[in-house]
């Protein structure tokens, strides 16, 4: 009986972890958002004690680049660190610092100097939770106006990791789909798959109806663009799904991300969030040069390399920098 009771408790715990992680990542930044938040507490604890002799943070003259606890964020931090080092700047990485609640205060007080962020979720998740800004320029303008005085964002990359409406290559070819608006004549016969909160989110079912006049046949609540969503799309259980735009499966399964011409989903450009007092013109130039070269496709290729092919993060990052003449 003991083993059976433990089993039920374990099952419930698993459900809780799953569901809690699902709800905490209403930002669209991560394809592996269900990673445990446990590292967050330990990492933030170690960075907050600046007297810790093992910590590389602050005052030691080294620029600390942080990352959240999912592969793309770690990869981007690696890109920043290697590019800074190539220009002779002492830079160190502090990876895997959990969710925004854990790392944002660290950047605000300067224990972390540079952080790869996503402009839309930075704004709506932390800086102004009531924002209605959607486009890259509107979001960046609000960030510039509303960030605390110690922080600023540099130039946004064209690389975007946002929610999307995505279909299989076969569906796209059959109906000649390029933009979300193209779905209009067919949506009534399609099942839409997305995270459960898509049902109530303003850019979810309601947004697709208001912006594009789409009413789908039905809605299947799945996961956060994770394995279940990918499998449901491949399997034909759903014909359209909310897949994040840098999810490696887009490459592997030749999914087609439909263009969001009416900005239903907020922009999620990769953007360096920096601690102003630690910046100098060289650092800013290096980070802006990366943003200038980083496209969604380049980011997707790198994500695919580290997530699907398990390539080494720094190898992938340095290959990108070398190809773009930044390494």
């Amino acid at each position, binding site marked *: 009986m003991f*083993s*059976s009771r433990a*089993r*039920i408790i*374990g*099952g*419930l715990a*698993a*459900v809780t972890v*799953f*569901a*809690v992680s*699902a*709800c905490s990542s209403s930002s669209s930044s991560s394809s592996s958002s269900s990673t445990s938040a446990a590292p967050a507490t330990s990492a933030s604890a170690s960075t907050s004690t600046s007297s810790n002799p093992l910590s590389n943070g602050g005052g030691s003259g080294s620029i600390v680049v942080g990352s959240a606890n999912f592969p793309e964020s770690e990869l981007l931090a690696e890109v920043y660190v290697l590019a800074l080092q190539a220009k002779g700047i002492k830079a160190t990485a502090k990876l895997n610092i959990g969710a925004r609640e854990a790392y944002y205060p660290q950047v605000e007080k300067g224990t972390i100097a540079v952080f790869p962020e996503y402009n839309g979720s930075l704004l709506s998740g932390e800086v102004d939770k009531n924002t209605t800004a959607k486009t890259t320029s509107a979001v960046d303008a609000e960030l510039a106006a509303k960030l605390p005085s110690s922080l600023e964002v540099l130039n946004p990359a064209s690389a975007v990791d946002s929610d999307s409406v995505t279909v299989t290559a076969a569906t796209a070819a059959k109906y000649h789909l390029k933009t979300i608006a193209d779905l209009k004549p067919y949506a009534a016969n399609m099942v839409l*798959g997305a*995270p*459960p*909160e898509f*049902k*109530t*989110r303003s850019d979810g079912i309601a947004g697709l109806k208001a912006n594009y006049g789409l009413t789908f046949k039905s809605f*299947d*609540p*799945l*996961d956060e663009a994770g*394995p*279940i969503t990918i*499998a*449901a799309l*491949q*399997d034909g*259980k*759903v014909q359209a799904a909310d897949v994040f735009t840098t999810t490696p499966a887009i490459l592997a399964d030749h999914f087609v991300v439909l263009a969001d011409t009416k900005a239903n989903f907020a922009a999620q450009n990769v953007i360096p969030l920096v601690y102003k007092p630690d910046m100098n013109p060289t650092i800013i130039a290096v980070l802006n040069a990366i943003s200038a070269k980083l496209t969604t496709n380049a980011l997707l290729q790198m994500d695919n390399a580290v997530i699907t092919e398990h390539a080494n993060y720094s190898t992938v990052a340095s290959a990108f920098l070398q190809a773009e003449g930044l390494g």
Partner: protein
Amino acid sequence: MSYFSYAWGWVTQSAHWQGADSIPHQILAHLGYSGLALLIAAVIAIPAGVVIGHTGRGSVTVINVANAWRAIPTLGLLIMLVLLLGFSYLTWLVPLVALGVPPILVNVYEGVAGVDPGVKDAARGAGMTAWQQVTRVEVPMALPLILVGLRTATIFVVATATLAAQIGLGGLGRFIIDGLASTDYSQVAGGALLVIMLAVLVLVFFAILDRLVVPAGLRKQRRSE
């Protein structure tokens, strides 16, 4: 008490009792998933348990495998099957059946194997065939334990069928998962309360069943012991 009234407030809102995703609809879906999984689990585990209990052959292996089997994480199995099979019936049935089989199998075996050897001897001595020994003596005498196994399996499966919602299916897990995803905690509490109530109803059902099907003589014997 505040949790209860909070959850109860959600459960009793009339809006939640109408429409496609309403409470009655999800309860029916939940009972459907659980019922089918339990039926299959019983069809597999009861005959197997009776055979092993009667003959004693392979009992150590089977019972140990069944107990070790309980350590399989249902959620992990579910996600793995999604990746392997996509979204067929088997995807959600296999994990629930796998959860239901061990408690039934172990209890049926224990019940049949544990029948008083003197009674078994008497049955054989009275000229009963093996089939008659099993159906007229061993299974009826094992019934209390068989029901315990079925009850345990039912509670496991009813509680765990909430996982079906993880792969976009219905059932009471829908309220828990959707509520968490949209930070609507009264919905989470209400969904959890419905699962608890369903589990309690299962207990009541089995208590009644026990009164109805266990032979009167056996009940009297239990009381006097």
